[in-house]
Structures are given as C-alpha cells and as structure tokens.
C-alpha cells in the first residue's frame, strides 16, 4: 500500500471519526478526516487520497451526492470510495453502488474486513 498517500475518512459523528482514525493509524495508515460531503470533495482534490471511507448520512452535502459529483469530476473519478452504511439497510448499499462507490462496509464496522477492502482498492 502506498503509505505516502493518506486515507480520507468522511464521518460527521465525532466519536466514530475519532475511533476509526485511531484504529487506522494503529494499522499504519495516515488519515485525513472530513465532516461533510462538501469538505470531502475539497480534500479529495487537495490530497488525492488512496481511498475514501465515506459515511452516507452527512450534513451539508450527503454521501451519495458527494459520490456522484466525484464520479463526474475528471480529476477525482479514479479515487476509490468505500461507503460506510448502516447495518441492515440493504437499500443504502445498493444506493451507494449506484452512486458510484467501489465497495461498502456496514456499521458496526468489521475492522479487519475494512482493512482488507482498503488494501485491495488502494493497490488497484
């Protein structure tokens, strides 16, 4: 995995953002964080992260909109996005894939599985 390019974590819930950041750091990844969809797009453009982990229920601009906009943007289109969707919300996962996400992880997050997904997408 390219250790120099960071993982972008987009999550409005402070507790979870904090926890996931710590865990990802612990796994040897550099993490930058955004709290809404607008900020996410801005950081994607600035830092070219290797993978984006995107919560879908976001303020200002939600995850689906941000995802679609990234797909329409020549510069951001190639950055893989993993949608973080709520447990048992089947419809959300389908939505996420339709919006152009590359993969999804359901909350509560199975962390080893998430790491494997990050690694796979970052390598591709």
């Amino acid at each position, binding site marked *: 995995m390219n250790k120099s390019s960071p993982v972008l974590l987009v999550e409005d*819930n402070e*507790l*979870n953002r904090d*926890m996931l950041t*710590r865990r990802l750091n612990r796994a040897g990844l550099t993490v930058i964080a955004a709290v809404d969809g607008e900020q996410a797009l801005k950081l994607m453009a600035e830092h070219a992260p290797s993978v984006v982990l995107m919560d879908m*229920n976001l303020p200002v601009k939600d995850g689906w909109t941000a995802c679609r906009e990234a797909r329409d943007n020549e510069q951001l289109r190639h950055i893989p996005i993993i949608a973080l969707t*709520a447990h048992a919300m089947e419809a959300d996962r389908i939505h996420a894939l339709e919006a152009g996400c590359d993969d999804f992880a359901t909350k*509560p*997050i199975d*962390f080893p599985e998430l790491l494997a997904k990050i690694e796979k997408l970052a390598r591709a």
Partner: protein
Amino acid sequence: MSSIPHQSTALWSDALLRTLIELRQLFTQLESSLDETAREDFSKLFEGANRLERSLESSAHSSHDQLTDKTSRHDLMNVLAAIRGYAEMLQEDVSPDQPDLGDSLTRLLMTIQTADAGGESSARVRSTAISSDPGFILAVDDRQENRELVARYLSRSGHLVVTAATGEEALKTLEQADVDVVLLDLVMPGMDGREVLRRIKEHEDWRATPVIVISGHQDMEDIIECIEAGADDYLFKPFNPVLLQARIKAGIERKRWHDREELYRHQLERNEKFIRATFGRYLSDEIVTDILERPEGLELGGDLREVTIMMSDIRGFTTLSEHLAPDQVVKMLNRYLGTMTDIIMAHHGTIDEFLGDAILAVFGAPLEREDDAGRAVRCAQAMQAAMADINAENRAEGLPEVQTGIALNTGSVIAGNIGSERRSKYGFVGHPMNVTSRIEDHCAGGEILLSDSTLQKLDGLYAVTDRRSLKVKGINQAVVVHRLVEVEL
C-alpha cells in the same frame, strides 16, 4: 413502534451499562500498569459510555414519534460502533498482559453484539423466543461481579435468582429450596464446580435439577467430562446473554417436565394403593393387578354386567350365637369366613360383603370370564366340602358344628364404585341381588340351590334335582330353582 422493542432495549442496555461499569472498575484498578495509548483508548471508550448513557436516558423519556426515534437510533448506533471499535482495539492490545481486562472487554463486545442484534427488527422475535416460565435459579460463581451480572440478566426476565459464592454454599441452598436450574461455574476455590456437580447428581432429590456448567476457557474436553458427569448444558465465559436466557429456558422446561412426571407417578402410586386397599381384601391379587393395568382405573359409576351371584349363610347362626360367649362367636366366625374367603378367591370370585355370618360374592365382575357360572358352582361345592374340616376343628374346641346353605343366581347387575368421593366401595346393585337373597332363604343346611338362569349358563357335568318355583316379592314371574346334587366325576 410497539412497546416490545423498547422492552428489549431495556434488556440489553442494562446489561451493557453493567459491563461498562465493570470495565471501568477494573480499569481504575489497573490503570497504572497500562501504557499511554491504552489509557487514551480507554478514556475515549468511557467517553462513548457516557454518551451512551445520556442517549439511552433521553430515548427513555422521548416521545414516540418516528423522527425522534430514527435520530436517536442513529445516534445510538454510532455510539455503539465507537465503543465497539475501542473495545476491539484494546482487546488486541491489552489482553495478553491483562487477562482480566481482556475478559471484561470480551464481555462488553458480546453485549454489544446482542445490542446490535436486539436493536434491529429481530428484537421482537428474540424477546418472545426467550420468554419463559419464571424459574428459581441458583447461580454459583466465586466472583461477585459475575454473580451480580447473572442475577441482573435473569431477574429482568422474571426469574428468581439466588447466588452462592462457594460450592458449600450452593449445596446448602439446594438443601433448603426447590431449585429449578443451577448455573455452575467450574473454577472455584475450595469445592470446585465438578465436585458440586458430582454431589448434585449423586443426591436422590437433586439429581433431576438441570445443571448448566460455565467454563472460563473454551475447553471442550472439560465440558464433555462434565456432561458425562451429568451436566445438562454448558456455556463459555463470557456468555452471550441471549444464549444464557435460552439455556435457562430449556433448563426450566426440563425441570417442569420432570416435576409433572413425578406428580403423575405419585398419583399413580396413590391410585394403586387405593385400589389395593379397596379390593385387596375381597379379590385375588391377580384380579387387583388386572384392574391396575386397566387405564380407566377406578371411577365412580358403573356398568351393567351379567354376573353369577353367590349368597351363603350359616343355618340358625343367630340362635346359636346367643348360647355362646362373644369371643367364641368371633373365633368360630373368623374360622368359617377365613376358609370361605380363601376358597372364593381361589375361584376368582369377588366378595361384595360379609353380613354377619352371611357372605355375598359375585363371579364375573370386575372381570368377566367365560366360566363365571361354572366357577361359582365349583366354588360352592368346595365351600360345602370344606365344612367337614371346619366342624372337625369346632368339635376339637368344644364348639358346636355348623351348616351352611348356598344360593346361586345369574343376572344383570350394575357393578361399579358406589358411594361418595369420600367413601365408596366396589359393589353391585340390581334385582338379581335381591332374588339371590330370597333363594338363600329357602336353602337348608348343606344345600346348594341354583336358579334356572345359572343352570343355563353351565356346561359340563352337573346334576340337579328338586325343581321348585319360588315366589319373589317385586316380580310377577316365579323364580325356578334347582338343588345341586353331588356327582362323583
């Protein structure tokens, strides 16, 4: 949203808060031995715990409108996800050095799993699936926090929980109370779980009480050994509360089955005693056993049966007894009735009653046989034949000789338990009974008189003579009787 998921929220949230309190206590004790990262992770985890408490509190007071519900569920999910994340991280980091903390974290994670499952639609199914009869549960564990945890889980679902900290204490509780299920920790100082299990299964009254053993480590061999020693089920620590509930439920059901079976057995035994007491004096063992094997047992009421009725009495006994001392009367009577009873039973007759020196017996009830009339006749012949011995004994003791007359009649009577619930007896009612008594009035000493209806039932070699028609009160038609003649076969 119905109230059912709320109830289940209460179930897991309580367990969750309890595990968090436990974890916090442990952390306070061990804080100094942890590195800085772990301490930070813990403080973040407890921050989540505080948030969780607030969020649960507000959801308990919130109105039930859908939007609030959805938002608070979303909040709750996020908080749980965070706590879970920290717990997983910490478990990886501290478990090797701090097994107690590791255990406590595992317990926390298990509870969160239940919360995740319980927070979704499956809550309804789950909460109904584990509801069971309230039971009396004995939880045996040397660690106080475990005892409290179990007591809390189980009393929430209506069980009565008593705890014991040692094996000795557990046995004492078993002596004093009727326990439905024993939850038994295997590893304890002093008398350990295996020994407690052994003693429970050796004890006659406790043997049927289901024992669920709890093992601290995932050691299957340990569990197999316990199951071979009589344990009914097992759980590994830290256990999932839903699983615990399910096993407790199964245990209680097992115990209830056993209790019902035991009750039924007691009733059967009582019935058997009653039947033996009711019939034993009048019937042969063989017939009593036959009756006991009939499932309908002994109910008040009866059925119409064709039977051969025998009535006998000693000629002139009343006059005779006036000249004898009371103890002589009783002695003579007992000798006579004793001998007659043996003969009647040997011929499978049912003695209905003794009326002074008179005997009323019936052939063909409660069990009907093909040769009822024939046996009655042979019985009467045997009784007359026995008189010689009885009189020889009477003579030897200076008592007078006696003679008996026997009447036989065949007809349909109602046979059954007649009386009240408190006092009933297997007896017979019907006109043929009275007819027999009238025939008996015409018997001379040493005679056997049988009615035409009995004669028609006989096959084989019998000789009769002295055909007579008797007028019997209550029926217009005369009763035809015959005197039986002794025939050398």
